[in-house]
Structure formats: C-alpha cells, structure tokens
C-alpha cells in the first residue's frame, strides 16, 4: 500500500489562500468563508476572527458532505459536488476543492445563490492547485521530528488527570 498523503500548508500558501478567501467573502457578500479538511479539521476562515465554533463546524460539515457523497452513490449519481443548507437567516453552501479539502461559505437572504456559486467557482480554480501542492508536501517532516515526538510524549504524560484522581 502507498503511504497516504499528508497535508502540509506553508506560510506562502496560507497567505495566498487567505487572500482568495477574503476576496471571496467580500465579493460574494458572505458572512464568513471557511476551509476544512474532508477528515473534519479546520484550516482557515475569512474573517480570521469569526465568531463560530470552527472545530465543531469542520467536523459536522465534513461529515455532512461525506454523507452526501454516499447518497450520490446510492442514487447511482456520479457525485454531488455541493451541499446547500437554507436557513431562516443564514444559508450554508459547501463545495469540494480537492479530495481532501472543502470550502464552506455562509450568506444571508440578501445575497443571491447564483452570485455565491459564480464567485465560489472562480475561487476554487485558484485554490485547487495550491492545495494539490500542499497535499504532496513533505515540508512538515522538518517540524514533526524525533524532538517533537519526545516533547509531545512528555506533554501527554502531564496533560491528562491521573486515573480516578
């Protein structure tokens, strides 16, 4: 079996990604935009200080999107590439960027869905190659090394309460 791909995003890539998201948020009239991994981990948001539980949001959006893909399979559809939730005040639109990345965009009823979809599609064209590079990266290896492993091991020993204490 091939060693599975990691995802390592460096400073330059994140700067480009944040630039794309900030622009998308502005032109699409969105409340906020987020990138999460398909395994349920948050990557970044625009604006950066968004008032939402991004950890839960990422886990639930990834789960919801994964379920949508399975629904497509059950219905013999090749794929459902987007997911749309319409709320009373806020709508949520989820689109796949790459195999490992999802884009979440929220917006109110004053913003047209077509406008959001148009600008999101354009943003995806820019984001896709950036994440494809990040997925092939081995850059993380210089950070996650034996020293990191040793320090993390000690931190884990001090981290959790003693059994039944």
């Amino acid at each position, binding site marked *: 079996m091939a060693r599975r791909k990691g995802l390592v995003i460096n400073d330059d890539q994140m700067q480009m990604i944040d630039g794309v998201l900030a622009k998308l948020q502005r032109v699409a009239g969105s409340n906020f935009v987020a990138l999460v991994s398909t395994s349920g981990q948050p990557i970044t948001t625009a604006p950066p200080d968004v008032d939402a539980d991004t950890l839960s949001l990422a886990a639930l959006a990834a789960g919801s999107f994964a379920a949508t893909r399975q629904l497509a399979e059950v219905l013999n559809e090749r794929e459902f590439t987007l997911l749309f939730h319409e709320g009373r005040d806020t709508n949520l639109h989820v689109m796949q960027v790459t195999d490992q990345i999802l884009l979440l965009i929220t917006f109110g009823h004053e913003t047209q869905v077509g406008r959001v979809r148009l600008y999101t599609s354009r943003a995806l064209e820019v984001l896709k190659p950036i994440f494809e590079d990040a997925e092939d990266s081995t850059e*993380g290896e210089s950070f996650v090394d034996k020293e990191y492993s040793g320090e993390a091991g000690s931190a884990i020993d001090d981290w959790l309460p003693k059994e039944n204490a």
Partner: protein
Amino acid sequence: MALINLAAREINYKIVYYGCGLCGKTTNIQYIHRRVNPNARGRLVSIATEEERTLYFDFLPLSLGTVKGLRTRFHLYTVPGQSFYNASRKLVLQGVDGVVFVADSQISRLDENVDSYLNLWDNLREQDEDPADLGVVLQMNKRDLGSIFSVTDLTELLNHTGSPVIEACALTGVGVFETLKTVCKQVIAKSSRS
C-alpha cells in the same frame, strides 16, 4: 499523516474509537469530556438516535497545548457500532491517524467483537490505509463484569497487529486516560520522522 498548518503553527491528529454496538466507545469519550481540564477541550458533539445510540459519530476536540512551537490538537471520534451503519463508519475513518478498538470483554459478545474487528480492517484496507502508518490500541472494556474473556484469549482474537492492550472500565474511568495517552503517543511517533 496529520494535517499540519505551518502558517498557523498548528497540527491536528484524528483518533477514532471503533468497536461493536454498546461496547463503550461513547462512554470513553463522555468520561474524557467530563474529566479533562475544560481549557483543553472543545464542545462534545453527538449525533445520536432518540435512544442515545450513536447514529453518525461523537466528536470531541482536545488541545495538548504548544509543542516545539506547534499547537497540537487531537480530534476524537466514535463510530456507530451497530452493524447496519457501515457506510457511516467508513466516512468517519477518512483521514484517521489512530484507532482505539474498544472490545466488550463479555463472553456473550464474542461474535459482535470479531465482526467489528474484521470490519475495521476491511474498511481501512478499502481506504488504502497501511496499518504501519496508524496508531492502534486495543482497549478491553467492561473488565468489572462477570463472564468475561481472559486478556490472553481476547488478545489472540482481536490483536493481530500486536498493538498495546489496556484493560478498562469506561463507566468508572479505569483505563480510559491510559488508552488515550497510549494512542496519542503512538500517532505522534508514527507521524514523526523515523
């Protein structure tokens, strides 16, 4: 391999608690949520049926703090144990870094344990996961009950990888943190450069 965000100096690992229905996966997560320092944990999210059986997953994010300049997080998930929820289990396994297989030690649960164990490895194989890349721990739960398997017998049945074995009673917390510590150390060791 974990998700590393060098710009945010952040690393995230995904750990999945796997096992048959009612073996104690959710009980492990609930105990961790209750007992861990509130500053080190996020919200516990559960997608369960009205009977409180896990329908999709439970999710609990934990923060270890900053290690060598990297903010380190573990995202704990459970899978639905009931056999007909296999599609959901596959989805939760995506991008997994470590697995805790929670075995119900009762002799009467032998078939369910074995089915779930085989199902875990089938699903990992389907996702092209190499077991050598994953942290794996076998937790033998419900050691406080009568009519249970010996550790040797359960190890023979449910541990072909020779993974660490921890005896537990998740309801009272015995072995819960030891399991978590062991799997966290394993996933970090696996992700670090050899």
